């Protein structure tokens, strides 16, 4: 090396770097204070709830907290034969506490989910305890085992032991139609009960097709918007945006009016003789309805990024392509289309991600064959109140979106996205 790196000093003799940092410090603090409210807001409304969702989805502390002595005693039990006396003692004293606090019902329900038949035998045990039928000076194990034959079944005790860890992956497995078998391995649920996997696939399928339909319809619209003279393009832009400004519910409801069997579209088909009056096709409460309504609703999300990219493409490029001898198609395909790829990427990603988590529209027009995974999440949140399962599926959806984003980044590069 011929030149040494010398420390540069300001005229006051302070190293330049130090001086620069000092000068910029104030600006940096100002900049940070400006974004601080947003950061706080993001944390409270985004990071924190997602963290909360995650803990809720894996949380299994309820039984752990209800049966502390039981699990303590179970640590020494190998789980192969009936547990020793201490486990029964522990369980008995834990259960007595629960009865005093009147929370023994929850334990029964929870254990019943782990293995069928728990509810009745815990209730039976409760009644025995309440009537003071259990003599604490005698062997508790023998007395409990006498109450019901299931208490003598090792499988039931194994089920209790399985609930010992405070965290569980069970909800995630359930979301993929799998469960933890008695021996701790992961097993598939019976074929006729695999509903979630169908829903996941259907969600992906519908999101994919809605994206494709949006692209096919949105591309020409965006092109027209970008090339028409101002006075027409403004009008067209309003036509694109007007539905966007209309309430989602209103739009979905109007699709219901249009698509139902006695609806406008079917009437029209009958009128032009496309279908017979007595065999009007079912266009709602199935996939068709979901496709049609979601495509219409998500179309602006495709058109707007495409438009903003196309607007920046100089019309002279197409002219150059043609004047150099390219047919209009070649000029489009080799020159125009590659330049719109950033917009296509942004539009498709936007539509796909929105479609994957779509809820109201499929719920209203989707029927049984057109509902998506988000409807299932809502169902568990509102109807079964299994929030931890809903959280697990929500997180699975979120990670799915992140995976898609990652794949997109690998294929196209996120830097190429242009939203405007």
């Amino acid at each position, binding site marked *: 090396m011929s030149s040494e790196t010398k420390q540069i000093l300001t005229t006051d003799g302070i190293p330049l770097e130090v001086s620069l940092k000092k000068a910029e410090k104030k600006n940096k603090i100002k900049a940070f204070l400006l974004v601080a409210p947003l950061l706080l807001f993001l944390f409270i409304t985004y990071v924190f709830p997602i963290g909360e969702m995650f803990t809720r989805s894996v949380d299994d502390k309820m039984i752990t907290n209800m049966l502390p002595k039981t699990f303590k005693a179970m640590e020494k039990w190998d789980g192969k034969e009936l547990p020793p006396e201490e486990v029964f003692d522990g369980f008995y004293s834990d259960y007595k506490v629960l009865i005093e606090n009147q929370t023994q019902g929850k334990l029964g329900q929870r254990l019943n989910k782990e293995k069928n038949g728990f509810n009745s035998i815990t209730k039976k045990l409760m009644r025995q305890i309440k009537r003071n039928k259990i003599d604490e000076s005698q062997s508790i194990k023998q007395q409990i085992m006498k109450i019901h034959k299931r208490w003598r079944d090792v499988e039931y005790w194994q089920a209790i032991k399985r609930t010992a860890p405070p965290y569980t992956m069970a909800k995630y497995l359930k979301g993929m139609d799998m469960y933890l078998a008695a021996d701790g391995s992961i097993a598939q649920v019976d074929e006729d009960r695999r509903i979630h996997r169908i829903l996941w696939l259907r969600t992906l399928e519908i999101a994919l097709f809605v994206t494709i339909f949006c692209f096919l319809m949105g591309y020409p619209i965006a092109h027209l918007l970008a090339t028409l003279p101002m006075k027409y393009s403004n009008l067209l832009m309003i036509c694109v945006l007007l539905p966007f400004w209309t309430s989602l519910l209103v739009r979905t409801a109007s699709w219901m009016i249009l698509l139902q069997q006695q609806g406008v579209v079917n009437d029209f088909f009958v009128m032009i003789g496309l279908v017979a009056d007595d065999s009007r096709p079912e266009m709602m409460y199935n996939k068709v309805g979901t496709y049609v309504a979601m495509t219409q609703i998500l179309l602006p999300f495709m058109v707007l990024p495409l438009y903003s990219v196309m607007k920046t493409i*100089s019309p*002279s*490029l197409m*002219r*150059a*392509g*043609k*004047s*150099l*001898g*390219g*047919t*209009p198609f*070649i*000029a489009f395909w*080799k*020159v125009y289309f*590659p*330049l719109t790829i950033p917009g296509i990427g942004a539009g498709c990603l936007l539509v796909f991600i929105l479609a994957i988590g779509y809820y109201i529209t499929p719920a209203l027009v989707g029927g049984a064959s057109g509902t998506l995974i988000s409807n299932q999440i809502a169902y568990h949140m509102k109807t079964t109140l299994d929030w931890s399962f809903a959280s697990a599926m929500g997180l699975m959806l979120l990670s799915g979106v992140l995976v898609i984003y990652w794949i997109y980044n690998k294929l196209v590069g996120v830097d190429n996205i242009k939203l405007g």
Partner: protein
Amino acid sequence: MSKNPEFVKFDKVDKSYDGKVLVVKDLQLDIAEGEFITMLGPSGSGKTTCLMMLAGFETPTNGEILLDGNIISNIPPHKRGIGMVFQNYALFPHMTVYENLAFPLRVRKIEKDEIDKKVDKALSMVSLNGFESRMPGQLSGGQQQRVAVARALVFDPAVVLMDEPLGALDKNLRESMQYEIKHIHESIGVTVVYVTHDQSEALTMSNRIAVFNDGKVQQLSSPAELYEKPVNSFVAEFIGENNTFNGEVSDISGDECKVKLSNAEILSNAISVKSKGEKTTVSLRPERALIEPAEKMDNMFSGKIEEVIYHGDHTRVRVNLLGNPEFILKVPNSTSNLELKVSQEIKIGWNSYDARALDPK
């Protein structure tokens, strides 16, 4: 091989966009093979429209355009085989320089070896060898310009159109590019139709210049003739600098006429005036009027200096002469004329031949 004097022919071409205003009116223009012709005019004069009609992006409302004797009005742009350099270069931003140049060759299904050869030749013509794998965005304005020129020439078109190609460059670069384009034209002999609103660019580069105004060709002639012998006031005004006097013809005999101004009478060259009593505008180039001429001249008047501006190689002197306070003189810098002072009275003289009596403004 003799050159075809009507290689490109505009035959009575009209063009209107809205059915109300004619942007191009009855255009009659012949362009010879191998010629460098410039369409010069202010914006909105219809020159770019003419170029676009020739390229095929606009269709004439009436009349025909012929290329080498064939009517091309109904041939789409991509089949015309006309190269074009656009105002903002229109290089394909997602392709390398090589791909940009290979584009017109690939669509013509030329073999790879041949393409390599031609691209190489075109790039060396604009001295950009070694830039094949650059993207247009990585090039400077002048380099992009040269790539655009190379691309328009690489497929050996019969005609190359250039639509204000140097408009975005800075002054020095623009001048050197003017010479470069001129030399390329001279070396390969392609027919060039060039559009610009910059008169010095037009004068530097062209064989002939068509001055456009109001949808019409005002004058079509060589740069020298255009400057020395403008046929009407617009051309005189538009090309170079110009002093004018408005007056009335008081006497006319052959090429010479007397023009009566409000307070004097001047001898002029009768160009577009025919008879006595006609209104006229007399045009005189600033460098044709002399200060304190040594020998006697046809017109000799004295005026007061209003302003003296030093320009380095020459000095501009604004004089109030014969009621025209905007009379400009260009005095070449030499030791003799350093005496010029504001509000000094000087004698100014010019020959009647240089004062052209044109149509009234």
